[in-house]
């Protein structure tokens, strides 16, 4: 039967639709709370969805992923605080617009730009995923090893500019991945006789600890009274004709930038939003308005950060490499559901492409409607005290982790990783690369060892795919460092000539 019909039929189940509705509400909420990221929400929800069938489970998780990327715009525009990192750039023009009395227009524009961006990104998923997987069967252990190494080099990307600390965090993750039984001989390594550690560190527990618990602990320790007072005057809600015309060009810019950035492993909506904002500024007839409440700037960022969603899913599922941090968490669930992301997935299950795209389309439409109807309601939530939120999150983290395996050991691991995550955060080490190292380290080792078992080192060196990928990986890790050096020299020269000021509001770039 046709994979399109098979895939879409899965959505006809009312239970799946109910899951999408639940996901949309949860996603909007977590997006709207600054401090609760989409990664954290998906990590938490995944401990509950693991007991469900894959399709309804995916419906919940993917919808949270989509709708958190709508909800997070609200605090960005109204309080100048990004709800999740993906809306960092939304604050550049969203908050200035709101201060000008255009909060209503900003919220509506943002919702539509986000929806259009999501659809643009999904086109890539629908049309590129299957061709990508056609070459799938050529990916044996040697090629997979090279691909995973490429994924590991993306640590540079998720380390938020701190390359050195990012690499150290990644190395910690890799070191932790050594714990557990040897993938080829089955010998125990650092398990200390604990049966639970035979398969390695339970990574759902580790992820919930690193992202959920650590985040809450960090916020508790650094909580200050809000600097910004929420905007209460919304003005008109719909953009006028002139504003609509202004939106056209940034929509294209944003979709393009977002699709490309999204397809790059480990790069997500936060990076795409900032890059697209800068690109749209260059392309605009009114670059001077950017940062002062430009509807073009707002459209470009929100389109781009949502256009990353489809390509991120594509990279994740077709190559088995997380497209962004939410996808890193999702891979954990997929593996437990017996859906092994990687080149073979879409060869065996082409219908899954359409099921996933379908879920995301329904989720986007539903979230857009919810956004337009409930925007005013969501803004009320910004007044909730953080202490209540923290308590709820900690309880959910514990219950959720226990539910995955009925295991108290896992809860202990989660709490331990919460403390580890807190220390990392406080010392300026990003948590993303730790998770990347933990998940990809196991894959890298297993595939390398298998490749060597099958044909020795020649097995890798004689594969064109493997060799090319390894060369690209080497370039990916050395070039950014080189560029940074060249840029610093240039800047140093510029600085001596004149006092250069940067146009990016760099303060809000810091998480």
């Amino acid at each position: 039967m046709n994979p399109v019909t098979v895939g879409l039929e899965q959505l006809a189940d009312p239970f799946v639709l109910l899951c999408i509705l639940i996901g949309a509400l949860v996603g909007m909420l977590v997006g709207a709370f600054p401090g609760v990221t989409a990664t954290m929400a998906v990590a938490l929800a995944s401990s509950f969805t693991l007991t469900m069938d894959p399709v309804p489970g995916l419906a919940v998780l993917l919808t949270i992923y989509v709708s958190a990327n709508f909800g997070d715009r609200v605090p960005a525009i109204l309080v100048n605080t990004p709800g999740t990192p993906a809306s960092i750039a939304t604050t550049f023009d969203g908050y200035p617009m709101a201060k000008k009395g255009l909060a209503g227009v900003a919220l509506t524009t943002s919702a539509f730009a986000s929806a259009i961006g999501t659809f643009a990104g999904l086109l890539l998923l629908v049309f590129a995923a299957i061709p990508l997987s056609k070459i799938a069967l050529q990916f044996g252990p040697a090629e997979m090893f090279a691909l995973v190494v490429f994924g590991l080099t993306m640590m540079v990307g998720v380390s938020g500019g701190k390359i050195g600390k990012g690499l150290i965090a990644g190395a910690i993750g890799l070191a932790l991945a050594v714990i557990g039984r040897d993938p080829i001989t089955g010998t125990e390594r650092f398990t200390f006789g604990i049966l639970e550690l035979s398969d390695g560190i339970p990574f759902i527990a580790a992820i919930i600890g690193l992202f959920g618990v650590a985040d809450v602990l960090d916020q508790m320790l650094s909580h200050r009274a809000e600097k910004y007072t929420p905007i209460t005057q919304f003005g008109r809600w719909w953009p006028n004709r002139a504003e609509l015309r202004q939106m056209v060009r940034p929509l294209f810019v944003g979709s393009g930038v977002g699709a490309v950035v999204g397809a790059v492993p480990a790069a997500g909506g936060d990076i795409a939003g900032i890059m697209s904002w800068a690109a749209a500024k260059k392309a605009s007839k009114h670059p001077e308005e950017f940062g002062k409440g430009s509807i073009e700037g707002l459209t470009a960022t929100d389109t781009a950060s949502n256009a990353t969603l489809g390509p991120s899913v594509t990279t994740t599922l077709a190559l088995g490499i997380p497209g962004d941090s939410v996808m890193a968490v999702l891979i954990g669930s997929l593996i437990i559901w017996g859906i092994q992301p990687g080149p073979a997935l879409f060869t065996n299950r082409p219908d899954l492409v359409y099921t996933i795209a379908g879920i995301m389309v329904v989720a986007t439409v539903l979230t857009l409607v919810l956004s337009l109807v409930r925007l005013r309601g969501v803004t009320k939530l910004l007044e909730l005290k953080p202490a209540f939120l923290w308590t709820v999150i900690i309880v959910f983290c514990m219950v959720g982790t226990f539910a995955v395996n009925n295991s108290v050991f896992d809860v202990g691991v989660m709490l331990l990783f919460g403390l580890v995550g807190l220390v990392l955060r406080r010392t300026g080490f990003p948590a993303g690369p730790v998770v990347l190292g933990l998940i990809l380290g196991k894959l890298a080792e297993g595939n390398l060892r298998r490749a060597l078992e099958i044909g020795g080192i020649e097995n890798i060196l004689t594969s064109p795919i493997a060799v090319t990928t390894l060369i690209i990986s080497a370039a990916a890790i050395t070039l950014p460092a080189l560029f940074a050096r060249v840029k610093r020299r240039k800047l140093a020269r510029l600085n001596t000539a004149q006092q250069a000021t940067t146009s990016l509001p760099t303060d809000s770039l810091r998480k």
Partner: protein
Amino acid sequence: MKNKLITIAAGAAALLLLTGCANRDAAVVDDEDYPSKAITLVVPYAAGGASDLSARTLAAAMEESLGQSIIVENRTGGAGSVGLSYLSGRPADGYSIGYLPVESVMLQYQGYDLDPAAYDVLGQIVSVPATIAVPADSPYETLQDLVDAAEANPDSITVSNSGAGSIWQAATTALNEVAGVSLKPVPFDGGAPAVTAAIGSQVDAVIAGISETAPAAADGRLRVLAIFDDEASDALPGVETAKSLGFDVSIGGWGAIGAPAGLPDSVRDALSEAVKAGVESEEFTSVINKSGNLPVYKNSSDFTTFFNAESERFGALFAE
């Protein structure tokens, strides 16, 4: 802020203590009213897998004959050792039973702190014969071809399997022993990737359960050379048993129901009866047949003999 942290830490500690204190009943006496409350069935693998499916389907069928509900509890990790170890520590009162996979007689030889004698086995419920398959365009047309190639090129004909120490890797060792060759096992991370590696000609052959190779054989992506069972299967038309091809190897996965050792006789009889009725139920056989595995019943005493024989066999195999 410090106070909040302390409160949370204290709360967490209290929760850990509470769960740790789950009490264990003392002496178990013969229970005439058995079963008078719900029974827990421990499955040492994740929900949604083949073992979980077998266990859950049987649990539903057993509920009918026991007149009590059976709660399936998945305790995963450590190749099944976490759940098996948990089961052996439960009271032998019949209210804790578990799904015993073939791994329950293999893991103790691989450094896991487990003992097959810790269980009373109540009966076998399912069997998963091993099969050996090659890519559709492989030069090896028969098992004999593959063995001849392995004889000519020792240690270089690769055979994928689902993981280090798995029953399918043990099957490779068993075949090597009988044929006097050295096929090279390559452990993957699960059965599906191992089968995919063979479809993509990354390896020369794969040894996996019949439910994993049969679908790929049906649509022409794999050629199954032999089934390591006493009888051929309808799921693989035209495929002969390894024994009939001259290689006397019969090996595969199986699943059984067991309980912590020392059940009172009456409880043991009641449970054995329920297992038998469950396996023979229409509901159970149709679900298991659909999954590609074989519903097979052996009663408690026959299965105990088989269980001990398997344990000894793997001891010898892993000593290699």
